[in-house]
């Protein structure tokens, strides 16, 4: 039983993990559907009838995936993610997560500028003026395309309120 070097996650553990997660989602759907009755009322099937069976199917099929995982993936040393890949994903995911979190407070325009600027200067090794000009250009283009042309406003934050842009 050798472990390929640099393996962060094995395929088998991910198969099991995801199957358990989807099974849990199924259980949540079943539980949620009991709120309005899962049986047969005066006007036919009650609102919880359909979702209840959906949840049940999710759980059953997840169990099927779980059994398959034990049958086919258990003894194979398949790699899901190597350390290097995990590192690359984190470098991509964490800034993206920060972008979404920041946009809750700062609005989309400010946080997208921070996000683009950060990724370009830190990961792309661009000079600050170059990155800044890309950020400003993007904001101006997005503002005119979305707010003026298509009239679908984006999420705004305190900076826009201060500048009196709504």
């Amino acid at each position, binding site marked *: 039983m050798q472990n390929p070097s640099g393996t962060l996650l094995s395929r088998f553990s*991910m*198969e099991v993990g*995801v199957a358990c997660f989807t099974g849990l*989602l*199924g259980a949540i*759907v079943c539980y*949620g559907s009991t709120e*309005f009755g899962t049986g*047969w009322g005066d006007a*036919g*099937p*009650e*609102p*919880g*009838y*359909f*979702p209840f069976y*959906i*949840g049940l199917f*999710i759980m059953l*099929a*997840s169990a*099927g*995936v779980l059994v*398959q995982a034990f049958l086919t993936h258990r003894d194979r040393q398949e790699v*899901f*993610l190597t350390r*290097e*890949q995990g590192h*690359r*994903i984190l*470098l*991509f*995911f964490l800034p*993206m*997560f920060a*972008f*979404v979190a920041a*946009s*809750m407070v700062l609005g*989309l325009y400010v946080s*997208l500028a921070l*996000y*683009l600027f950060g*990724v*370009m200067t830190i*990961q*792309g*090794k*661009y000079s600050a003026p170059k990155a800044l000009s*890309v950020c400003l250009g*993007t904001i101006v283009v*997005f503002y005119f395309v*979305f707010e003026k042309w*298509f*009239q*679908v*406003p*984006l*999420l705004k934050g305190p900076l826009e309120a201060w500048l009196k842009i709504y």
Partner: protein
Amino acid sequence: MDNFGNLMAGFGIVFSAYHLALMAAGVLLGILVGVLPGLGAPNGVSLLIPLTFTMDPVSAIILLTSMYWGALFGGSTTSILFNIPGEPSSVATTFDGYPMAQQGHATHALTLAFVSAGIGALVGVAVITMLSGWVTQFALKFSSPEYFAVYLLTFCSFIGMGSASPFKAIVSMMLGFGFATVGMDGISGNTRLTFGFPELIKGISFLVAVIGLFGLGELIQTMEEGLRFEGIHARIRMRDVFRAIATLPSHIVTLVRSALIGCWMGITPGGPTAASFMSYGLAKRFSRRKDGFGKGEPAGVVAPETADHSAGTCAILPMLALGVPGSATAAVMMGGLMIWGLTPGPMLFIERPDFVWGTIASMYLGNVMAVVLVLATVPLFAAILRVPFSIIGPMIVVVCFIGAYQISGARLDLWLALVFGVFGYLLKKLDYPIAPMVLAMVLGDKTEDAFRQSMIFSKGSLSIFWTNSTLVAGIMVVAMVLLFWPLISKLIQRARGQAA
């Protein structure tokens, strides 16, 4: 020739400067979306839908379908020049397209791909034109049990005919149904599965799910693989283009076979990806130069491209006529139709013939325009891929999240898109099919309504799905055969083995 007259009326609607400009814009945006990693056709169409809310439906569908054609062409471009399929359906094109480009025949490969794709698409639209009258008459006999049976047929075919594990297909599909039931229940008015979160009352938008699953999920996967573009410089010389077109008649058998496969897979929910692989396999099997395949055989470009595009266009027919989309992108478009206040299905042909025939007419024009535009702009789009990924990557991320926010202006949708992104990445890496989930999210409410209405008719007896009409029984039988197809085909093989 009622269809022909209708089609001419459709052309009358489409031929305006505004619509032609929309078509060109849609095609160009589509090529961009098809070329960029992480932004495929379903995701691109999802991102555009919020911008069409204020448009008239005919203009909106022209924009969306044109984007779809553009995305299909863009996917082929990167397959050939970069060995990176922009779309899952253009994977088969890389097998011979990239070797051809490596050997210095990039223009030849691209021209063959685009023109045969254009021919495939036109065959697809012609099939739609001929069949739509007939499908409508057929579909007018439908009531709730028949509708439920057709939805069931669609879902069963995904489970039985798909290449993934049937359990995984069921998990993916049922999760889609589960997400679709969140929020206000259309029949009773109760709010289901919201667990006290007021933000969930409006439900989980399938558009947010598509942006996460297809867009962000794919981007995460691209990042994990470590992105490296080893592109081949392409300069399109008109002489080479005409020379390539001149060789097309020698591929006539491949063209016809591939177009037929594509039409069949597009109308039945096999989808463009399966069609292109199947067509490539058959082209190889019937070729006299089997050894050339994989090393730059022109027929290996013609076959998958023709099938991909004829399947892509044919997938529109069941969406318009029955309300059953044949591909993930068609599912997203159908969701768009419902948002614009149209009900896909047979009544659409009667109530809004201008919309239906305008769409079909625009498909002819859009595909011709796409071939011309894509040939003209290949160098430009190839240059975009040479922009460093540390600029392009975050830009795509930003566009995806802006698209998610615009759907209903809800902050929660940003988080949902992120969650769906991670989920989509995991599912894709573990070979769960994602199209059934999207399909179930779009069709979930309609399927449930059809089921509950049938149950109300029959006072709770499931036998209505067998006894209501011969039509419903027939569809149910086909659905069951498709569902258990893996088992049935094994039994047939065993029986053959014993007989031999």
